[in-house]
């Protein structure tokens, strides 16, 4: 799925441990997919950013990617 790929691509660009990035779709309802993002413990700050600025930007771009597939997606950063 394109949207998952976009999320994983962005996350890998932001972290120090790209091999530890994983994206798991969990069952949301049919119109909205929840994507769980996991990164290395040391990289949590990198994907969240100051006052959540980076996390917000990730969600915005991932949402745009999802509209290209005619769906919507919510990103949850899991530790």
């Amino acid at each position, binding site marked *: 799925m394109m949207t998952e790929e*976009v999320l994983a691509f962005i996350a890998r*660009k*932001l972290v120090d441990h790209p091999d530890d990035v994983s994206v798991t779709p969990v069952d949301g309802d049919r119109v909205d997919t929840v994507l769980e993002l996991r990164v290395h413990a040391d990289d949590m700050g990198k994907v969240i950013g100051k006052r959540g600025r*980076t996390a917000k*930007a990730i969600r915005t771009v991932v949402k*745009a990617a999802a509209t*290209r597939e005619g769906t919507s997606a919510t990103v949850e950063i899991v530790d």
Partner: protein
Amino acid sequence: MTRMIEKRASTVKDATAAALRELGVGPDEATVEVLNEGRRGLFSGRSRAHVRVTVREDRSNGETPVGDTLVTEPDSRAEDGTAGLETDDTSGADRLAELNEEADLAADFVEGLLDILELPGDIEIEVDENQAFVNVVEVGSGLLIGRRGATLEALQELVRAATQRHVERRSHVRIDIEGYRQRQLDKMKDRCREGIAQVRETGEPFRLEAMDAFERKVMHDLVARTGGVTSASEGVEPRRRVVVYAAEE
């Protein structure tokens, strides 16, 4: 002054032609370096052709020294003492190399995203003394711009975070898609001019909208070129804004 442009397009020929057009020079006035031939393919094998076109500094002499035609690295050009790019502690050549590196990282980010989303688009990279610009054109979709530029703004934030991680200094790369932010900047300049006129008339300070560092600098420069007014920034990022004041004589 633009001295060098990089361009990524579907073929080397397209990329070179577009870069020359932008620089406003003929093929004999510039040096073309092919950084990637580009590969065609439907899926992951696809890559854009990537060229770097540099205006030759000797073009006004009408004479090309033998052996100089392949010198394209900005740092080796600056070493001959003609670049005159010293702006701060970092030498012009170092600065340009840093900005080139940032621009490349940013272009890779954007190109990767376009590929995953299966969007077309040519990428132009322009580097001047203080700033790198990465412009995506011919995308044929507003997807990455978003409502009121929200997606583009998010993209800029991510590119900033990603490049900053690699280069570990403040990022100076600005992303644009189909000229959207350039048009926004032009509107900001219009409002700034209106503000200047108002300050001159009333003597009261005029507050502009919140802007990023690059946009604020453009406004400060605009005010500085105008007599009778001065400007300062106030507030905290991302709500920092330029205020125009009447100059005290």
